[in-house]
């Protein structure tokens, strides 16, 4: 079985994230890392590999700037077998459509793939749309937002917390699968894993390797445009009271009444 896991390199969510003057995400000023939510996808891929027990191969795929290779390295340290980093100046500022195009071409080049696995959302853009776009581009079915993943032969079953129901979804490989943070804690790289990762194959592909024209991607080719980004005004400091002998409840009630919530 061939599994490709899509891992994104994102600015650290706990740092002070900013926009550049051209309204693209600042990917230089803030430390980046493998998106936490994609670690869950790597984990599920590794578990499928462990269960299948055959010659299953897990490839980590990342589209992003030079530093983004760190995301691929982390996946290799966790236990992925191979890494692919697609990097090209022209990709900077790409929107979902262009990102999904580059990912789709890379998946195709990676060879016959049984499962394309993704996180539930990237922690910066948080669109939760790339997996569906990728599926559309590859002409594959999608089973998304899985909290439980099971496979047997070429059959896949997932459980998902849908908008209005809890569902079990089934499909036949090849397909695109995304997992949520309910799917189970991701493993930490072990010392052995970190050492082993250094010897694992890691390829860097450019757009021309994929046969994608530079004019099809990047900020110029985007199907959407950001007009303005505004930092949210800081909230004005609120009133904070200490509860003493029931005073807190009374003050809370007064506040809610003053705001007409009662």
């Amino acid at each position: 079985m061939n599994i490709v896991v899509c891992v994104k390199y994102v600015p650290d969510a706990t740092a002070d994230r900013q926009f550049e003057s051209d309204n693209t995400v600042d990917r230089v000023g803030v430390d980046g890392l493998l998106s936490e939510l994609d670690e869950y996808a790597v984990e599920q891929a590794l578990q499928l590999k462990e269960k299948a027990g055959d010659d299953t191969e897990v490839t980590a795929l990342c589209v992003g700037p030079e530093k983004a290779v760190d995301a691929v390295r982390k996946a290799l340290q966790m236990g992925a077998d191979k890494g692919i980093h697609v990097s090209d100046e022209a990709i900077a500022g790409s929107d979902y459509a262009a990102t999904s195009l580059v990912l789709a071409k890379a998946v195709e080049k990676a060879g016959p793939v049984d499962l394309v696995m993704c996180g539930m959302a990237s922690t910066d853009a948080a669109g939760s749309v790339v997996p569906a776009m990728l599926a559309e581009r590859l002409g594959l079915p999608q089973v998304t937002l899985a909290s439980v993943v099971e496979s047997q032969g070429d059959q896949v079953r997932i459980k998902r917390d849908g908008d209005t129901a809890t569902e079990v979804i089934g499909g036949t490989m090849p397909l695109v699968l995304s997992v949520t943070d309910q799917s189970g804690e991701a493993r930490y790289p072990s010392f052995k894993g970190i050492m082993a990762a250094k010897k694992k194959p890691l390829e860097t592909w450019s757009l021309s390797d994929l046969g994608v024209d530079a004019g099809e991607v990047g900020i110029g080719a985007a199907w959407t445009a950001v007009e303005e980004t505004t930092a949210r005004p800081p909230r004005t400091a609120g009133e904070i009271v200490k509860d003493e002998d029931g005073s807190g409840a009374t003050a809370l009630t007064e506040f809610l009444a003053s705001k007409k919530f009662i």
Partner: protein
Amino acid sequence: MSEVLVLIDHVDGAVRKPTYELLTIAKRFGEPSAVYIGPAGQAADVTEKVKKYGAEKVYVVDDAQVKGYLVAPKAEVLQQVAEKASPAAILIPSTSEGKEIGARLSIKLKSGLITDAVDVQPGDGGPVATQSVFAGNFTLTGKVTQGTPIITVKPNSAAPEEAAGAGTVEEVTPTISDAAKGAQIVASQPRKASGRPELTEAAIVVAGGRGTGGDFTPIEGLADALGGAVGASRAAVDSGWIAHTFQIGQTGKTVSPQLYVANGISGAIQHRAGMQTSKTIVAVNKDEEAPIFELVDFGVVGDLNTVLPAATEEITKRKG
């Protein structure tokens, strides 16, 4: 005037409130045309409802061929309706399924997609959408520059306004490809109704975290006294105290109610991401250093097990 397609959000023909919000938004830049994909038996009832909010046309698509599958067939239906109607925009409810339908449709129609809009207004050269990003720390406006704007819109993004529409029914028989039927719904268990407002639509949300120690009775009591919904932090969900559907935050629901009351919740960035845009924020926490207090309009440093029941009693008394 051009049509603006609105995908109706419903469960077995029961129309959900965001549909009316989307119809209200659609009227700002065109003639709302509602698209109903559902059981044919409910179509007449659904039509009656959406025409009260300005739907001039209702495309009715019997879901016999569609139900049982995830996302892809619905994207094909919308593609076929869009090719017929040449709409000025397509508005889809920003649910997890809605966003994925938008994603597939975007590639099919070679049209730009904007997700999770909290407002959409007419602008030069098409609708301008407002989004809230980076855990609510930034507001962003943007528009679609290629094809038909496809915008998924979050609940509570507009106040639904009644407006009489013609509600002309047009039945559509879509062609669904075999490829779109690749992911089947094998089993589905509808969620039990809690009797409380829907979390993402509620005007008031009362949430509990690890600080509840697992007992949500004080949270539910206050929620019911205020007529609000109940929510939770991931710590409470991970502890198995409450179902994941109630989780608020980066990997749960985003809410933007008039009033958010956080109880026994520290205010981690991932939690903030789901509630920071609430209009009024109140917190009860026994640790005065808890980061949640940086966000509040009003905070009580105290034990939620004493503060909440007492407040609930006072509120109930006042209401008489």
